[in-house]
């Protein structure tokens, strides 16, 4: 079944994008990327520690298997995001960028206006922009119109493990979207991922739920299966919701314990 996800002209078999943050060790990260079956992983861009330069994370990641998606995490303003996006392009030699413009430190919710403005400039500058946004259907449409290659509505606060509070909004975003919709942030368990794909979301991005699980590799494999399950269920055509029951066994011809007259 050819059912590729296409983002900015690039095809992916996996609909699970994985973040590389918050892992307990480089080895746990490498193992869980492997178990997840992902084909694209996010990285953040940070200052090199000139006094003790540790090894570069990209030395550990098989670049033939995983496309790198640099993010602009940590940026509070449009200007910061543009600068970090351009540094990331140079670092990873890619025009893909996960755009985050986040002024709020407590819930890490994105700035709709700053995100739209930064997206506009990055698209002009030749980037393939994947913006992280609140699940706002009009904003999602605006970002698509300025040329973003996806929209990435949030499920709930980053790292909160609250799951997807925004199912209804995501449904509406999906109705109108002509670019892939990737649900990002807040996912905690595979059922969150399945749920997103079952309603038609094109992919999910997961980081903390895997990295901070007691057993990250096992959780990564669980998310891989959950994402596949959700996508297949979407394609397989679910049953409708009904108010009343319908027997799964025939209602008639039940034998009767009638005794002789």
């Amino acid at each position: 079944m050819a059912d590729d996800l296409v983002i900015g002209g690039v095809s992916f078999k996996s609909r699970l994008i994985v973040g590389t943050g918050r892992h307990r060790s480089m080895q746990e990260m490498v193992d869980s990327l492997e178990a997840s079956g992902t084909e694209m992983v996010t990285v953040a861009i940070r200052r090199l520690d000139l006094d003790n330069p540790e090894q570069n994370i990209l030395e550990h990641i098989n670049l033939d298997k995983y496309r790198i998606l640099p993010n602009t995490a940590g940026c509070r303003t449009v200007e910061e995001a543009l600068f970090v996006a351009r540094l990331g392009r140079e670092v990873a030699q890619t025009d893909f960028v996960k755009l985050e413009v986040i002024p709020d430190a407590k819930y890490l919710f994105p700035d709709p206006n700053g995100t739209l403005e930064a997206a506009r400039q990055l698209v002009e500058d030749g980037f393939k922009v994947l913006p992280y946004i609140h699940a706002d259907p009009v904003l999602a449409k605006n970002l698509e119109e300025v040329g973003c290659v996806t929209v990435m509505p949030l499920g709930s606060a980053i790292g909160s493990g609250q799951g997807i509070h925004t199912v209804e909004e995501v449904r509406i975003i999906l109705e109108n979207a002509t670019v892939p919709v990737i649900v990002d942030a807040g996912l905690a368990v595979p059922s969150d991922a399945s749920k997103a794909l079952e309603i038609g979301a094109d992919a999910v991005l997961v980081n903390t739920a895997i990295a901070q699980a007691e057993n990250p590799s096992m959780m990564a494999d669980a998310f891989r299966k959950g994402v596949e399950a959700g996508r297949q269920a979407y394609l397989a055509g679910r049953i409708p919701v009904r108010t009343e029951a319908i027997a799964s066994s025939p209602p008639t011809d039940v034998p009767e314990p009638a005794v002789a007259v």
Partner: protein
Amino acid sequence: MMTLKVNGKPREVADDLDLETYLASIDVNMRFIAVGYNGQVVRKENFAAVKLNPGDALEIVRPVGGG
């Protein structure tokens, strides 16, 4: 000697220095890094062409784990 701002901290460097020489002098592994020079990103091939002046701000960055 002159003072640059490198990754947010002041650094004393020799006068009359270009970016490539400076980076070599501090043993930066050139793989998977990028450099911002006064808010502009400099492509690797242009490092040699960038002459450093007092007060210049450098951001030398690399990827780290992130979501």
